[in-house]
């Protein structure tokens, strides 16, 4: 006779029978485990041997979770929870922080990046930006996730100047968040054409009529480079000049910091090749 069908006196009824009655077949509602994949953005030490790991995941968005004992040399997944690693995870929902119960590497972008210092610094600026731009925890941000994975892959492949990859990522990440700079029209009146002035607080290039005081006057090639990076036109971006790249980085950094309010600390330490 099955556990469910039988009549048990209340005091003797086994646990299994109690749950079998309440739950439909295949349902696993009592276990608060979930699976997701994500990129490790940053890690902070916690207590003796634990770490708080901040991840940008595909389905859940920004997650802060505890990796227990991951700082010990014998930890089974400590090495997989390093920044830049794209991991497949199993997490347990906790009261304030979730707990990582399993982790498997999908792709470790950190290895090729640490071997090349300018690439590494560009990568950390990308991770920090991803964390600051998503902000809200557990709010799905699929496009930001895909953009970050794509950005890290491009950076690790070393096919383009790391500074360009970083700027392309920052511009597109801002665009996904709704802060795309106006580059082919005036940010104030909307008149089309390439304008000479760039005003960070106005939202992009501005025409000579709308131009607010304190606008920058970048070279036209710099604005073209920004547009190429936003579009993903690598042929044009790779052909650009060093001084236009530097000017572009400056404008992108200023634009990013204006919109995010908090500064991106790692931008200061990004090295030029």
């Amino acid at each position, binding site marked *: 006779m099955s556990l469910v069908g039988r009549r048990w006196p209340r005091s003797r009824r086994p646990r299994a029978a109690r749950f079998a009655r309440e739950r439909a077949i295949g349902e696993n509602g009592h276990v608060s485990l979930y699976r997701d994949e994500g990129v490790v953005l940053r890690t902070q030490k916690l207590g003796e041997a634990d770490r708080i790991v901040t991840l940008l995941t595909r389905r859940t968005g920004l997650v802060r979770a505890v990796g227990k004992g991951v700082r010990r040399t014998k930890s089974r997944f400590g*090495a997989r929870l390093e920044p830049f690693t794209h991991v497949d995870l199993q997490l347990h929902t906790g009261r304030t922080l979730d707990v990582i119960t399993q982790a498997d590497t999908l792709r470790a972008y950190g290895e090729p990046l640490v*071997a090349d*210092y300018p690439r590494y610094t560009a990568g*950390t600026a990308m991770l920090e930006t991803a964390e600051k731009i998503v902000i809200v925890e557990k709010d799905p941000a699929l496009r930001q996730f895909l953009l970050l994975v794509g950005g890290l892959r491009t950076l690790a492949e070393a096919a383009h100047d790391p500074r360009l990859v970083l700027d392309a990522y920052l511009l597109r990440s801002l665009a996904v968040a709704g802060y795309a700079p106006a580059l082919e029209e005036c940010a104030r009146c909307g008149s089309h054409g390439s304008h000479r002035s760039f005003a960070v607080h106005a939202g992009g290039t501005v025409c000579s009529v709308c131009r607010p005081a304190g606008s920058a006057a970048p070279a036209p090639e710099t604005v073209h480079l920004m547009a190429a990076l936003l579009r993903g036109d690598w042929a044009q971006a790779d052909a650009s000049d060093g001084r236009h790249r530097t000017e572009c980085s400056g404008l992108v950094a200023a634009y990013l910091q204006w919109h995010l309010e908090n500064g991106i600390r790692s931008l200061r*330490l990004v090295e030029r090749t």
Partner: protein
Amino acid sequence: MYEGAVQNLIDELGRLPGVGPKSAQRIAFHLLAAETADVKRLVHALVEVKERVRFCSVCGNVAEEEQCRICRDPRRDAAVICVVEESKDVVAIERTREFRGRYHVLGGAISPIEGVGPDDLRIRELMARLSDGQITELILATDPNLEGEATATYLARLVKPMGLKVTRLASGLPVGGDLEYADEVTLGRAFEGRRSLEL
């Protein structure tokens, strides 16, 4: 809430790392029940550590004099410097009894996300030590995590033009571990750094 002195002690103990309110209370009452001599010894140790301990002028390790014990020891090999992140790492390496050279404590690792750049570490002091021409080998013993690796890459690039031998601690399988539980990155490094067994 307790009265004055007891609560004061609990609050102070609660500020220590890893000590929560309940642990603080437990320690406070333990101290209250302990012998006066024991408590005096603890107080003395606390005051002494702040008054006597300082950082070695050469390597940056904790010391009680101008230079630390290792930098003063004439038997240590002055031609080899081992670069570590913290003083704790010096102790860890000393325990192996494998290394007879001297150390250089950086005081952390490059971590752009925390705002720690090369200028915030004792890298300038290291360069000054290397420039006197006495040193032939630099061993990079920063942590085998991302920040440590990046710091090692940065230092290797900086030191390369000086023509020194620069080595990095090996990464691989822990002694007493199981191969099947090793992660891909560590196992990959173990393969990369494999050595021939000369019998």
